[in-house]
């Protein structure tokens, strides 16, 4: 999937160059026009490979995934001290059990996960950087609205108290956040909000940390986290997926709701009228129409 937002801005920029060149003397010069045509083509080419969602493979079904290469107790830990709501979706761990203290988990627990799940996680973590080498901009740490794109930070990123990032777009738009492009980068949110705007989907948002973990505390968060180390959330409302190369630790999740839960099993379709109901409605309207016409034509 790719977003159209960046493409529009690039091609609009190219069109502006063409329009400006057209206003200049000698606008019909074939070399100038060829250069501009190439610029337009190059812009379009860049757009074609902007923000590609990683293929999650078999990991896509999981809401929470702990992938310790040496499976140990605590690979996935969920603790509810009272205010938590739980995990809505499937939980997976490479260990043979999760540590659950009072968390309501609405979904199956897969322990241990198949080997393919771990390798799909590794592939997704590796590919997200390769598929999205160009950065649209830096990951903001102040309140702002972000169009679809690839946002990067060279080192760790902390989104602090009161900051709200609004990801504004439509249902097919994609956001990629790469933390630690310089080699090491953790993601930390404290009392922060990352929310969707328009009809954009939290299941098209991806965060990747590099050789470090992810921590969200007292926050509202969206997206799939591919943490290159641990992932920890405390009292956070999260729609997406929490995936960690080592341990996934949840305390009082408010809740965390997985994409598979929203898109498939949990999402009930509600048609307005079935086929037979549409036929019946058309018949009723026709009968009522006939009756009205007949009554009026018989009226003196």
């Amino acid at each position: 999937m790719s977003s159209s937002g960046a493409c529009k801005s690039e091609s609009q920029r190219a069109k502006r160059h063409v329009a400006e060149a057209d206003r200049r003397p000698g606008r019909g010069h074939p070399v100038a026009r060829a250069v501009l045509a190439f610029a337009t083509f190059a812009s379009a080419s860049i757009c074609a490979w902007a923000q590609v969602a990683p293929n999650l493979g078999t990991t896509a079904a999981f809401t929470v995934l702990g992938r310790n290469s040496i499976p140990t107790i605590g690979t996935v830990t969920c603790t509810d001290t009272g205010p938590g709501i739980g995990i809505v979706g499937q939980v997976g761990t490479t260990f043979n059990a999760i540590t659950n203290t009072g968390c309501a988990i609405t979904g199956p627990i897969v322990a241990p996960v198949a080997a393919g799940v771990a390798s799909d996680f590794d592939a997704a973590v590796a590919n997200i950087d390769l598929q999205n080498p160009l950065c649209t901009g830096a990951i903001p740490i102040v309140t702002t609205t972000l169009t679809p794109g690839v946002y990067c930070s060279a080192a760790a990123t902390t989104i602090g108290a009161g900051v709200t990032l609004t990801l504004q777009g439509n249902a097919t738009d994609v956001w990629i956040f790469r933390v630690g492009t310089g080699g090491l980068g953790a993601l930390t949110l404290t009392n922060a909000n990352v929310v969707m705007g328009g009809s954009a989907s939290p299941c098209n948002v991806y965060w990747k940390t590099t050789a470090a973990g992810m921590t969200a505390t007292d926050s509202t968060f969206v997206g799939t986290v591919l943490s290159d180390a641990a992932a920890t959330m405390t009292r956070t409302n999260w729609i997406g997926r929490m995936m960690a190369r080592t341990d996934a630790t949840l305390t009082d999740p408010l809740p965390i709701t997985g994409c598979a839960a929203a898109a498939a099993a949990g999402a009930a379709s509600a048609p307005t009228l079935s086929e037979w109901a549409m036929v019946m409605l058309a018949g009723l309207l026709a009968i009522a129409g006939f009756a009205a016409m007949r009554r009026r034509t018989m009226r003196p």
Partner: protein
Amino acid sequence: MARFFTLFVVILLALFAVELTPPAQSAVVIPWTDALALISARLVTVFDPHVVAFGQTLQSTRNGFAISIEAGCNGIEAALILIAAMLAFPAPWKHRALGILAGLAAVQALNIVRVVSLFYIGQWNLEAFEWAHLYLWQALIMLDALIVWLLWIRTLPSAAYRPAEAEPRSSRAP
């Protein structure tokens, strides 16, 4: 009367055919379906902050229950049937236009109520959700369209179609 029936069927088939074309889907059906989820979420969040809408999905952050507003769930088909009937029935164009506007408003307003109610019924009890969605709300939407249709016919001037019926070769518009 045969003319009304024939026109009704032809217009209905034409409207459904147009609705299925990619341009109509991308320009009207999909944006309206997205908007319906968004409108429903905005209404619900007035009294319940634990609701989010993304794409065509309306989801509770409290328990994860979600409903997906797919093609066919947006009330467009019911509105098209009503529009086809109004276009086929002999009536002045002004009455037709007003009737279509009123019909669209009535069907879509009730559909929003339907979506919101199903969202909460589903969180309460899935069996009740199935029953409400398969039987109760289909009947109510049909009743809504039928009431609009009957009220619209009552508001027509009594001579609106009689000359056309009495003189089939009249140049009056259908």
